[in-house]
């Protein structure tokens, strides 16, 4: 049994085999319940325990409420924020910033990636400086951008655009480079024009890689938005967090953090959905790989 409950992709057939191996009925029943317990419900144990501990700790004031507000207080603040419309206002502002910056970054990133991918000459000219620029972490540019652009909206757009541009451009370039040679040979055999080659072969083969870049870019965009808003903003979700911290209202901080998480999740899932939809014609390959 000890080996069997290792978690490597154990299939139902294996489980059945394991059951056969154990002869006595009580043990089998125990194994059944054990496996059943391992079902979806188990995932709630840790959050539930955390929540209980949290609630008990704040009820008995083991920790000062300024340092750890009660879960109920957080929930109440969250509801209040929703009811008063403050949340939607800040949320809308943040989302608008991401929309503009991300669109800008994606368009530039795809153009850059495609042009470097298709022309050796463009790549020779641009790739060293592109590599140099992308070596500096997005946040490294922030103080410089703040000096040049001030702390207005353009700062947010530029930082978010830059954050999404780099992964989009890199993945687009990689995608174009990795179009299978034999596809191109087939196209040549059919005497495709250059335009046909691009439209019918190169771009469709590149789309999955571009989507990997887009998803990664969106994660980066959201991350940098929060950071920019923490550092230089007077509205938006990041600002809500800073504001709550300054007032020592951690319930506000925590509820904003929850919203940041939910939005991050929704953005990623939304893009994954769009990706599946656009790539319906393709056999499923897992291109997302590791990483966050």
């Amino acid at each position: 049994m000890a080996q069997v409950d290792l978690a490597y992709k154990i299939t139902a057939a294996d489980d059945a085999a394991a059951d056969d191996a154990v002869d006595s009925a009580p043990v089998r029943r125990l194994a059944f319940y054990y496996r059943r317990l391992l079902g979806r419900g188990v995932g709630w144990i840790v959050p539930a325990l955390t929540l209980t501990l949290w609630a008990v700790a704040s009820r008995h004031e083991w920790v000062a409420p300024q340092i750890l507000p009660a879960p109920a207080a957080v929930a109440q603040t969250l509801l209040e924020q929703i009811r008063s419309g403050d949340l939607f206002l800040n949320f809308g502002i943040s989302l608008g910033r991401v929309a503009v910056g991300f669109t800008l970054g994606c368009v530039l990133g795809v153009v850059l990636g495609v042009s470097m991918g298709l022309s050796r000459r463009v790549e020779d000219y641009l790739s060293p400086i592109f590599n140099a620029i992308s070596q500096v972490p997005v946040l490294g540019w922030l103080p410089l951008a703040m000096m040049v652009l001030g702390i207005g909206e353009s700062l947010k757009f530029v930082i978010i655009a830059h954050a999404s541009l780099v992964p989009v451009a890199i993945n687009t370039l990689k995608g174009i480079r990795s179009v299978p040679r034999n596809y191109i040979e087939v196209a040549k055999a059919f005497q495709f024009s250059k335009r046909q080659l691009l439209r019918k072969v190169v771009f469709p083969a590149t789309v999955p890689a571009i989507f990997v870049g887009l998803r990664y870019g969106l994660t980066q965009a959201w991350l940098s938005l929060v950071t920019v808003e923490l550092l230089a903003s007077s509205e938006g979700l990041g600002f809500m967090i800073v504001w709550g911290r300054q007032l020592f209202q951690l319930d506000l901080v925590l509820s904003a953090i929850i919203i940041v998480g939910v939005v991050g999740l929704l953005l990623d899932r939304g893009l994954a959905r769009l990706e599946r939809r656009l790539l319906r014609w393709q056999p499923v390959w897992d291109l997302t790989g590791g990483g966050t």
Partner: protein
Amino acid sequence: MSAIAASFTSLRFRRGLVVPLLVLVAWELITHYKLANVHLLASPTAVLKSFAVQAKEGELFSQLLASLRRDLSGFALGSLAGLLLGSAMGTSRVADRLFGPSFDAAKQVAVFAWIPLISVWFGNGEPAKVVFIGLAAFYPVVVNTYQGIRSVSREHVEVTRAFRFSRLQTFRKVALPAALPAIFSGLHLALIYAWLATLGAEYLLAPAPGIGNLMIDGRESMAMDKVLLGVILAGLIGFSLNAAAARVEAYFLRWRVRNA
């Protein structure tokens, strides 16, 4: 040697120099002829001078060291915790089911959003910074370790069963080596995130010597030469960490059969 010399005189290399040189020349000319606000825009020579001055005073070196120490201690903390949780979740179904959903939920929060909370819980100083950097490094290591262990091939697992390997043996002799490439890419990502987080922590938490702090100071005193110096250093450190990680990775994975 001649190959290296040839690559420096190649068309490719010369083309690659064009854009950076143009930028440098334009930048120097603009500042020289005061075409833009010179108070704001420092010339390339000013940046070089600032570099020379700061390097001579030894201040630059200590800032660099402070940042690196912070970065690496956070990275060590975060990746160690990440390796533990990732391998627990990868090898034990119970751990996976217990922690998986909570981990996935926590991962969704943009990591910088935790800074204000961390500053309440851990203060504003060094411990808070290291904890935050550790958190940033933690996520990619968990995800990649978990996926690496999970993707151990069926055949290998069957062999271990045939040989009646103990759980520990299976982990040490099969799962770990098979997961190593994924674990390394997780660590590599963690290194990148940790450096990003180091800069963020220096911006957002209490001022202490460091590259991020150098830039923030420069911005506040409108000394663009300092800021640009910081940008260049941030890039160089990021690049060197990257290169070092790739080296270490190649060394530890040299047993792998290369088929590409």
